[in-house]
């Protein structure tokens, strides 16, 4: 066997455990769900072919489908840019060489490694309208805080605010991106008389754009799959369905009502939306992402 081929075989053998797991637990179910989305399937009895009925009902008769899609799009439109801005700002702050910076970085990163369910439970207390931390703080200033998760308007915003809790994960990637920007670019800009704002605008952000692009793509995908926090904090979709996220409704359809075919159709519509949006973001990168 040629040395190159031997290397390939060795390489594949090393990644075989992952490959097997990926095919068995991800790729094959992924393909199966295409078929299931055209069936009536309740897990127990064999799937029964129903053609486009699931898709037709979803798009024409299911009010909650549209509601949940709207909630999710609204969340994505608000959360994704907000997470990018907060992440970049935090990274810029933590990129400064001040005493104890390692400790600050750790503090900001820590929330992102706390399990989501634990975070959600803590936030249930923080957002309690009567005994919660936020409303108690507001009360000190004579302000009566909102009812948060019991209020159709604030329930959504409570989840948006909470979603920023884990921004430390992307912050670390931005920080790594900032460290990769060559110092000579800043030196040249300073010699040319660029102000800090101009250096940020014309050096930092363009050089950071590949990292922003990566986080943007991941953020869009994550926002459309937002589930755990909504499930733990508002399992029934919140007051007036204000936090009925697409994935939450999909989960309820699948596991509460045993409507796997319908849920598979929902999953494929979600997949197509995410793929389309990701493709749009990819196409747009020529205009704003700078590689070196």
């Amino acid at each position, binding site marked *: 066997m040629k040395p190159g081929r031997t290397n390939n075989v060795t390489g594949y053998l090393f990644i075989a455990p992952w490959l097997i797991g990926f095919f068995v637990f991800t790729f094959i179910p992924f393909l199966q769900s295409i078929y299931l989305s055209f069936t*009536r399937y309740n*897990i127990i009895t064999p799937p029964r072919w*129903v053609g486009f009925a699931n898709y037709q009902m979803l798009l024409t008769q299911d009010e909650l489908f549209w509601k949940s899609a709207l909630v999710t799009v609204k969340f994505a439109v608000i959360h994704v840019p907000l997470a990018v801005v907060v992440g970049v700002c935090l990274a810029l702050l933590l990129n400064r060489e001040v005493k104890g910076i390692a400790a600050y970085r750790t503090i900001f990163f820590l929330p992102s490694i706390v399990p989501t369910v634990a975070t959600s439970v803590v936030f249930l207390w923080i957002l*309690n*309208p*009567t005994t919660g931390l936020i409303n108690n703080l507001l009360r000190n200033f004579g302000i009566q805080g909102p009812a948060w998760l019991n209020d159709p308007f604030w329930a959504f915003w409570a989840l948006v605010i909470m979603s920023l809790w884990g921004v430390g994960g992307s912050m670390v990637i931005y920080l790594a991106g900032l460290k990769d920007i060559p110092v000579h670019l800043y030196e040249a800009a300073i010699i040319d008389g660029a102000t800090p704002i101009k250096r940020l605008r014309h050096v930092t952000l363009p050089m950071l754009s590949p990292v922003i692009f990566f986080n943007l793509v991941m953020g869009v995908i994550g926002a459309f799959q937002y589930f755990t926090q909504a499930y733990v904090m508002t399992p029934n979709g919140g*007051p007036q369905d204000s936090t009925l996220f697409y994935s939450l409704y999909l989960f309820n359809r699948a596991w509460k009502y045993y409507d796997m075919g319908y849920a598979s159709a929902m999953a494929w519509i979600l997949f197509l939306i995410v793929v389309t949006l990701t493709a749009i973001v990819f196409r747009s990168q020529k205009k704003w992402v700078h590689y070196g």
Partner: protein
Amino acid sequence: MVKNLKWVAFLLLALGFGAFVFSQKPPSQRKYQDRIEVRFWHRWGGEWAKVVADIAERYNQSQTKYEVVPLSVPGSGADAKLTLGIIGGNPPDVMSMWNGAIPSLASNGLLTPLEEVMSPADQDRFMNESYPVIRDSGRFGGKTYGVTIGSDLYALYVNEEHLKELGLNVEDFPKTLEGVCELGNRLNKTDANGNLTRLGFLLNSFSFVAYNFGPGFYDPVSESLSLNTAENLRALEFITEERRKIGFERVTRFQAGLNTGSDTGGWPFITGDLSITIDGQWRVEEIRKYRPDMKYRVIPIPPPAKNGRGMGGTISGNFMVIPTSAKQKEGAWDFIRFWSGFADKEASARCFNDGGWLPLFPDLVETKTFQAWLKQGPEFQGFIDILSSENCLPMPPVPYLQFLNDQIGRAEDQAVRGTLSPKSALEKLSYTVAEEQRKRKALGYEE
């Protein structure tokens, strides 16, 4: 050479550690190794799980053939776990399931019709001697899929001390729903900012209260749902109006600050935050445990002044089901017999008393054990009285009951928030459920 040896030593160490870890078997829960194992899943956790474990142990000591091994599977996804267990070929032999999940599980072929394991004598006792409302809550499509090991029912809990503050005795308690609401408003307490510090009474739970106004959500004659009815509209209008009087926002804030712990003695009625409240019969046992000195009464929810139905309600609770692919169906049924009252009535009564659950058979109430227990918590009798009422009806026996209950809850939420009028909320409920029925029909679910 030394480097290679280090690697070999490291690999051997890692392999040895791995072999040790994987060779460790989890500690066995079996106590009677020579008996046939009956795997029992239930949804209780914490203190309640200990009660259930004690009952299982008493069963194990009562005979020598089977060993029931209980496993707590708490959480809202218990039915999903059961489904996965069945599909994965490793289901429990018997599971305690919320009765609302039975129609869906049964219609999907997941549950064993219990007639297959019941003797003719057991069937006869079950069909003719049990409380009809409990019996029918475990039945679907003319077959029995679940037998209760503890049903739940709701009534009013009234704090006598709070009534005394107004110079009232519990004997003067209002006989109409309007009267209770009025009394509740008098019992409310607020702080300087107008925030509630004590809630007199809040009428909620449309899915339960509707039975005090009419026959609920199902017409057994036409065997179909009856959602948008005049009685249900009156019930929803009543609930909405009472909520409006107290103030939706005020109640929401007050409730959010209440302790929701169910088995820690922190129930807001015990702590005095609620004067009159609708709650389940298991609270009698809770009060007996944590506030035995508390002066309170259990009173059935009175009907509205006009065209009401006294002693109305519906039951929910824990029903034993046997999965179709269970390996030890006979053992499972033997355990159900022990707990539910088909075998030793005194032993069964003790099981129901341990958790403060409602029994399947009226004759269990007559046992010495039950009567002795009733003496310690006489308020429980109020719930037993409701059970016999013809206005206490089972939930609609439809396979999409989870969906229906969600939609009924949604209609109540929309009405009390004022998003929709009660009339529109009911119309929407009716429309949404009809759409779901059409969808299920089109997809061949009901064939």
